[in-house]
């Protein structure tokens, strides 16, 4: 009468340890899957950073500024491989960020999108930009690739009005 009792405890021990091992390891495997996804996504972003390039091509001696409307004009050329996202551009004028509605982005020439080689004219409304002063403009852009937003780049220019 001793044997069935012993094998029942053993059976319970066995089941408990297997269940614990499976659930623990299941969690670890799940984490590993997620982590590998993150690693690859980060790498894709980092690789895209190399392909997203923007260059401000303004002549620093003659940066167009309209004092009446307070409109500053920056020309930016896409010197990278990926198309740039116009809506995600950020312009920082003397430390103050301007984005979305404050920017008016128009493509130059016959291009409709900000693709490789094309130039965008960015009009920024900055009122009361002081004359006879040094100013600094920073431009930050994001690239688009197959519907995903990937890669970033920035460029800056210093000029005297």
């Amino acid at each position, binding site marked *: 009468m001793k044997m069935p009792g012993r094998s029942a405890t053993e059976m319970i021990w066995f089941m408990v340890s297997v269940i614990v091992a499976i659930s623990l390891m299941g969690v670890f495997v799940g984490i590993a899957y997620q982590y*590998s996804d993150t690693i*690859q996504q980060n790498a894709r972003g980092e*690789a895209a*950073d*190399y392909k997203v390039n923007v260059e401000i091509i303004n002549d620093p001696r003659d940066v167009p500024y309209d004092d009446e409307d307070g409109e500053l004009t920056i020309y930016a*050329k896409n*010197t990278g491989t990926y198309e740039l996202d116009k809506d995600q551009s950020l312009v920082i004028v003397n430390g103050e960020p301007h984005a979305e509605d404050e920017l008016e982005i128009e493509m130059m020439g016959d291009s409709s999108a900000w693709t490789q*080689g094309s130039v965008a004219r960015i009009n920024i409304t900055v009122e009361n930009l002081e004359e006879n002063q040094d100013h600094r403009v920073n431009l930050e852009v994001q690239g688009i690739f197959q519907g995903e937003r990937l890669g970033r780049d920035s460029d800056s220019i210093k000029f005297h009005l």
Partner: protein
Amino acid sequence: MGLSVSASTGIVLISLILIFGTLYPAIQKSEDMKNDAREEWLDWREEKQQAGMNITEVRYEDHELNITLTNTGDTIMDIRELEVMLNGNYSTDKIEDQVVDEEIENTNIWNPGQKLTLSLENVDEDINRVAIVNEFGSIIYHSMESD
């Protein structure tokens, strides 16, 4: 007792293999991806550094501006990708004519050592500054105040 230990050890081992099998290819693939992109970028940087151009002459005549450039670097440049800024304003769309070495008109390739003449039309008289941008985003300037 002995059976449950070996069973759980087996499960742990199999899971470790699964974890390693997931992480290792992911890390390897991403390293490859990054390296490829970096290599491509380094090539581009090298080309950019070797690229050079010079404004040899700027002539204004009756609303027409002729800019003569020389490719002084070691990179073949694309003429379509050149941008012209006159007095700080985008004026690439005013280019009417492009001639390489004074004879080749239907090309977009600008080889090292070759001369390129850009003819711009509808140009204002008071232009005193010309800036040329190449496909790498490098800019050269020319001032005409002395004229």
